């Protein structure tokens, strides 16, 4: 028995154990990205709301600035409701692909449940070609469900729609000729989904809302996980990530080859006090308008503690938090959501500058694997 076990271990070691398939190079350290949902809300401090056109153009500009600052990834999500502007997120990503040269780009997320996986794949493969191999998909189930009605789907099929369409998306990514039958889409017979991405396939992640049950579903499928962390103790999310890796392992996947990303609120200012003060009205107002309840001050005030998952603070404080989270999670990518509730452009530009000059050098120095 002992001999057999050794053989198995040896076999696993011989297989390449890296995350190349997902374009992740851990020798460069934790990747840092920015993500937007395209929030389009009146500034709670002034009551003024910029036009949708200005907001979309600012998002494209932010992607350019992110690239100049050396940020690894920039992504745009789709929310089909009031107070958002990037419903057509693939179109925005296409403009970003054209406007940038090296930053990786993706969705955050693409609601695959209410889209046709064939069309989604065509879009992202095209963005991949325009961007010279920089496109990724993060597929999610939607945290708000108004889009089911808007796009003509039954919300009763919430889970079944996602699972079937996500499986098909993964299949299209792996196979050039598709034979497929399902419940929610016409069958595919010897179908070719074109164009193919530059390197033949795209990194496809599963967006996870924060519960272990949801994380485990990504583990069963053996796909990378993008985990939303809205608030609370960072330690809580360690158990979620552990559950994901455990399930992946038990289902024959090697967690060493599966990247984990986390996402959450981000804002830096000179002092931690200032950072919280600047960010709070946007978080509170944004939550009120889009989710119907504000963010409790009591819970937000706890962001001052290093152990809180909310990365709002002075640059030094935020660096310490991200490193602490990396120690707990061993994750490969962190996505900062800094424009929640329509934080004004000038502040976002300032944040990108601080990320480039102070935060990235520090986190790369400490997280690069030798």
């Amino acid at each position, binding site marked *: 028995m002992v001999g057999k076990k050794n053989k198995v271990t040896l076999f696993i070691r011989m297989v390449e154990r890296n995350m190349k398939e997902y374009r992740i190079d851990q020798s460069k350290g934790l990747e840092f990205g920015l993500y937007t949902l395209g929030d389009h809300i009146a500034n709670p401090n002034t009551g003024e709301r910029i036009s949708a056109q200005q907001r979309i153009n600012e998002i494209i500009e932010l992607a350019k600035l992110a690239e100049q600052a050396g940020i690894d990834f920039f992504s745009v999500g789709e929310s089909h409701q009031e107070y958002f502007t990037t419903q057509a997120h693939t179109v925005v990503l296409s403009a970003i692909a054209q406007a940038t040269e090296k930053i990786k780009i993706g969705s955050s997320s693409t609601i695959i449940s209410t889209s046709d996986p064939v069309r989604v794949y065509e879009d992202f493969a095209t963005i991949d070609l325009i961007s010279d191999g920089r496109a990724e998909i993060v597929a999610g189930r939607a945290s*708000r469900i*108004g889009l089911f009605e808007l796009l003509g789907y039954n*919300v009763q099929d919430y889970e079944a729609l996602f699972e079937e369409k996500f499986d098909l998306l993964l299949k299209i990514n792996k196979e050039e000729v598709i034979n497929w039958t399902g419940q929610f889409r016409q069958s595919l017979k010897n179908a070719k989904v074109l164009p193919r991405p530059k390197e033949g396939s795209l990194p496809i992640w599963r967006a996870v809302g924060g519960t272990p049950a949801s994380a485990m579903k990504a583990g069963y499928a053996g796909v990378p996980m993008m985990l939303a962390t809205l608030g609370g103790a960072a330690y809580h999310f360690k158990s979620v990530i552990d559950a994901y890796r455990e399930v992946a392992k038990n289902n024959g996947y090697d967690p060493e080859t599966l990247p984990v990303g986390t996402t959450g609120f981000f804002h830096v200012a000179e002092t931690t*006090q200032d950072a919280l003060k600047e960010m709070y009205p946007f978080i509170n107002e944004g939550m009120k308008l889009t989710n*119907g*309840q504000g963010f*409790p001050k009591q819970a937000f005030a706890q962001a001052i503690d290093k152990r809180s998952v909310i990365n709002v603070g002075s640059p030094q404080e935020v660096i310490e938090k991200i490193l602490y989270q990396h120690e707990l999670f061993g994750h490969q990518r962190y996505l900062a959501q800094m424009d929640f509730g329509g934080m004004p452009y000038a502040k976002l530009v300032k944040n990108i500058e601080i990320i480039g000059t102070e935060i990235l050098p520090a986190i790369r120095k400490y997280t690069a694997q030798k």
Partner: protein
Amino acid sequence: MKIVGLSGSIVGSKTRTAMNYLSKEISEKYPEVEFNLIDLAEYDIQFSDGRNYLEYEGDTGFVSKQIMEADAIVIGTPIFQASIPATLKNIFDLLPEKGFRDKVVSMIVTAGSPKHYLIAEQQLKPILSYMKAQIVQSYVFIEEKDFYRKEIVNDDIIFRIQRLVEDTIVLTETYSSLRKAKEEEYWF
């Protein structure tokens, strides 16, 4: 201060009768309070399908928004089969998980039998706690024998409703002023 009275059944008259007494007590003693009585019998409410309450339309959207905008909610409920009725549970299901955060909730319970006295204690209160309500601990329990021809005939019940109204308003005032003071202590 906004208070919503929620009559939680679409059948029978006892709960609605008790809620009418409550409305009268509030409007007479506290005219400054913005009070709305929602009798579920007068609305067409759909079953919860898990969406955010902002996304419901018609009566369902109206009722859930009224509740979410209130500072306090007085729930009136009958007890059917040793339980709150499904119509009331559906209202809870329409609201966010922490839907009663920073809200005061009090209760008037009507029942055909004294055997149902602990249902509010053991079934309704845990739901309200889970949804983060500030609960007025004492509730008014009214039996069949306290009603006659859609009127309350037991003076003690009238007194208890008066006390419930006072407790609800005192707790709402106290809680919101304490919360306001605490929030002003934060620097943001």
